[in-house]
């Protein structure tokens, strides 16, 4: 057994986290920064932070993840990191020549209390930020919130730094996609394009973290939202923010700063959430839903019809981030599955309430925990087994120990390739997700059935 010491009996833990279902803010900020075109993310802290974040993002995306660091030593930790950041900005603009540097803080620089805007001011005054180049920052102390918060904070910083209020609003909307895969961002853009809606998406990691092999390395790949677009986000007629936690703060900031009204929706995972997204696009964009989208929707409904016999009342355990889990729970309930254990490491007051309301009326008890960890998740499973597990790569240890089929979904996925190329959002993404569920369940049925029961046609 790989997790051989995990007891079935659950005891309350007040101080010890075992097998976290979250990580720290800065990595989320780094991922969001990569969704700005020509941007080099910069970690204001010790080298270890950026080394860990780059490693984890690289293992997940299997793509270059470029970023720089202030390389704090003990001296900087005592005297503050201003000198380090000034020197770093000078070196970065001279050597790596990005258009933008997106600085995020760490627990180290936050504990010291470095004032980034003040340091930026000094850097500008000293001529360390060349004309026509940009900097932005987000405060992302690792001891507050999680990676989800860090993503949200950096996304909001894009608004705070660049979006420009405008009296005249253009016939265009903003789409904030939330922490999803580059493939998902591409799919969201495709759907908006099918509807003929003009839009600005930020952040946008398509063509940054799912780039082609061309034999040529580009330090700053083709993708990403441009600074001009971020400026224009203030003159869009509305914003669709996907993901309450990851996109909500940026959308609200746009509303406050630039009077761009927003709608905050779930991530468009599954039929209902995608319906709401498409409907919002239609209304906000003032367009009709084209046949092409109706066909995709119909195909998704068609395969649910074909598959639902296999899904019906199968129990599922989910672990991941709140935005993903809320959408996914609704999706699973909508196909007659029973999500019964749901854990996120991110603390969020509304999460448990939302999950409870989504699972209301299911013929079973539903365990939900915000601010939980994977050990608790595992213990719940030991006490009430499930038919399917959905979560990031770390769940494979539980899956193997408990012999339960497992689908990788969320962050990080360190042992499979495909998530950055194939979406799970939208109707087509929904179809792919259902295919994965069905494959997992049927492979298990094939493996477990006796020779007598083994069937060709299923």
């Amino acid at each position, binding site marked *: 057994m*790989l*997790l051989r*010491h995990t*007891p079935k009996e659950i*005891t309350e*833990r*007040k*101080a*010890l*986290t*075992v*097998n*976290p279902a*979250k*990580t*720290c803010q800065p*990595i989320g900020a780094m991922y969001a920064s990569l969704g700005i075109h020509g941007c080099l993310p*910069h970690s204001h802290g*010790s*080298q*270890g*932070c950026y*080394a860990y*974040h780059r490693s984890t993002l*690289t*293992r997940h995306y*299997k793509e*270059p*993840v*470029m970023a*720089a*660091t202030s*390389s*704090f*030593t*003990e*001296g*900087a*930790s005592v005297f503050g990191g201003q000198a*380090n950041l000034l*020197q*770093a*900005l000078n*070196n*970065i603009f001279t*050597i790596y020549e990005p258009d933008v540097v997106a600085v995020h803080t760490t*627990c*180290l620089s936050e*504990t010291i209390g470095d004032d980034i805007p003040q340091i930026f001011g000094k850097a500008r005054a000293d001529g360390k930020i060349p004309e026509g180049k940009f900097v932005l920052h987000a405060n992302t*102390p*690792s*001891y*507050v919130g999680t990676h989800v918060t860090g993503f949200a904070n950096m996304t909001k910083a894009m608004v705070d730094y660049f979006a420009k209020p405008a009296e005249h609003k253009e016939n265009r909307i903003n789409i904030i996609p939330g922490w999803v895969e580059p493939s998902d961002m591409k799919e969201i853009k495709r759907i908006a394009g099918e509807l003929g809606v003009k839009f600005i998406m930020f952040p946008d990691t398509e063509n940054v973290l799912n*780039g082609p*092999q061309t*034999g040529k*390395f580009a330090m700053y790949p083709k993708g990403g939202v441009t600074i001009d677009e971020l400026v224009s986000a203030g003159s869009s007629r509305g914003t669709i923010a996907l993901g309450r936690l990851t996109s909500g703060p940026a959308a609200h900031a746009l509303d406050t700063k630039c009077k761009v009204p927003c709608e905050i929706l779930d991530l468009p995972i599954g039929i209902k959430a995608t319906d709401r997204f498409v409907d919002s696009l239609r209304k906000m964009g003032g367009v009709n839903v084209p046949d092409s989208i109706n066909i995709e929707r119909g195909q998704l409904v068609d395969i649910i019809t074909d598959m639902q016999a296999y899904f019906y009342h199968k129990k599922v355990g989910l672990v991941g981030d709140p935005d993903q889990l809320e959408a996914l729970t609704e999706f699973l309930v909508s196909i007659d599955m029973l999500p019964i254990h749901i854990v996120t490491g991110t603390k969020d007051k509304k999460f448990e309430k939302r999950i409870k309301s989504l699972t209301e009326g299911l013929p079973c008890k539903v365990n939900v925990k915000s601010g939980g960890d994977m*050990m608790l998740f595992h213990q719940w499973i030991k006490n009430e087994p499930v038919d399917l597990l959905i979560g990031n790569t*770390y769940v494979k240890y539980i899956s193997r120990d408990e012999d339960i089929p497992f689908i990788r979904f969320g962050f990080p996925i*360190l042992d499979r390739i495909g998530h950055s190329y194939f979406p799970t959002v939208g109707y087509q993404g929904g179809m792919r997700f259902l295919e994965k569920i069905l494959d997992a369940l049927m492979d298990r049925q094939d493996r477990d059935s006796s020779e007598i029961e083994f069937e060709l046609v299923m």
Partner: protein
Amino acid sequence: MEPMRKETTEYEEKTDNWKDIDPKKVKQEIMEKYPPKVARKRSKHFVINKKVDDENYTEIQANVRTIPGIISQRGCCYAGCKGVVMGPTRDIINLTHGPIGCGFYSWLTRRNQTDPSTTPDGHNFMTYCFSTDMEEREIIFGGEKKLKAAIQEAYDIFKPKMISVFATCPVGLIGDDIHSVTREMEKKLGITIFGFSCEGYKGVSQSAGHHVANNGLFQHVIGLDDTVKEGDYKVNLLGEYNIGGDAFLIEDLFERCGITLISTFSGNSSVDHFSNSHTADLNLIMCHRSINYVADMMEQKYGIPWLKINFLSAEATSRSLRKIAEYYGDQKLIDRVEEVIAEEMPAVEKAQAEIRPRLEGKLAMMFVGGSRAHHYQELFKEIGMITIAAGYEFAHRDDYEGRHVLPKIKVDADSRNIEELDVQKDPEKYNPRIDKKELEAEERHGVRLKDYEGMMPDMEEGDYVIDDISQYETEKLIETYKPAIFCAGIKEKYMIQKHGIPMKQLHSYDTGGPYAVYKGAVNFYYEMDRMINSKVWDHIKAPWEKSPELSAMYAYE
């Protein structure tokens, strides 16, 4: 089946040309890009290998701060302590005291394999991540209370025999005294509990963390169990982390030679073995950088001499086995080692003969770790490949130039922050394993003790030796030489592959390995053939990119 062969590539047409490139010019061009202050500093880390006299090679600057804003391969002190040295030991609870990130990122991300069935209690906590998950409250009011409670909970639930605590950056800043907490809890719970002050900002790289970890192991674990085990030629293997199963192959080789392995620091390792390791008669060092401190301290306290060995490549393995046998000077061992070498070499030679023609003369570059960039060069040599550029991520001058420069190394403020333990002979347990004269002369039976000559003597003059290489320097080297393979870590992997150049991770071996000793060497030869001669490199250019003129011809016709 057809062997996987690559059509002639642009690179192969150029293979003879690389010798025409002037390294000095390349260096100059790279340095020109840097701001003057940066160029001055980096040029001391970026040297062209040259023997200056009988003993010395060009001085290289190493183990100093990375310049802020320079994209480096390095990580932090915590990573070296918790991740590298303490991580691969299965039966200890490693509790990270800090915000969640540090614990999360070091959770199972190194490929240290372990076999819990070989220790009687079967404990294995390596699949777990334990953290105090510090939040704002603790940053403001202090985290000692939470740490104490976390240790108690870990004890109550898991009943481990040992717990260690790792300090992260904010812990040092807010002034939590992890050592007083661990002392108090040790007394309360009656098991070994101790802490590491391995805050990420300490030192200049992972290297500081190795030192901190060595100190902690030496002070709190080594020497706890005096049971003397049966067996001949009792050794400890130091600096072998069992990535991809390397240690398993070495264990097997020792067993066949009749060498008794007491403890490995730290791969497939157990704190039970660490506790008992002072009963060995010889320490063998693989990774000099990460673990030489323990070897030195064990020599001072217990009188155990150490030898530098290397089990990467067939040649180095044979040499190391013979060195160990010579050291003991026992004919039985000398003969047995020769028998084992004779058993192993035919398969190795067969593989070399098969692979060599496919890789002969191709260029390799490797920038990794504190020893691997040296050790792997010999593996490449065995298949005819040429290493023209190498360097370490976090090593010190002695790893490049040899230990004879140790007295000449200036200790700067960053190194002074890492405690040097004052080690004395143990009044009861000190037992010089060899003649006093031999110890003093640092030589026994013609075998040099405590000796490591470093990387530079094994490289040609004119080769690049680059410390703490930057992303920019990496790219320029690649563009200039188009090596057949580049070795580094995960952060560098895809940047290099996007250049169309295969990239082998030598920290984690990607998903491959083991590469140690004879069987591992054979694995490595085939792995290089697979990577370098893979068909994928031929797919990069689409047919219409290869000959765009065709459309014009149609128009003409």
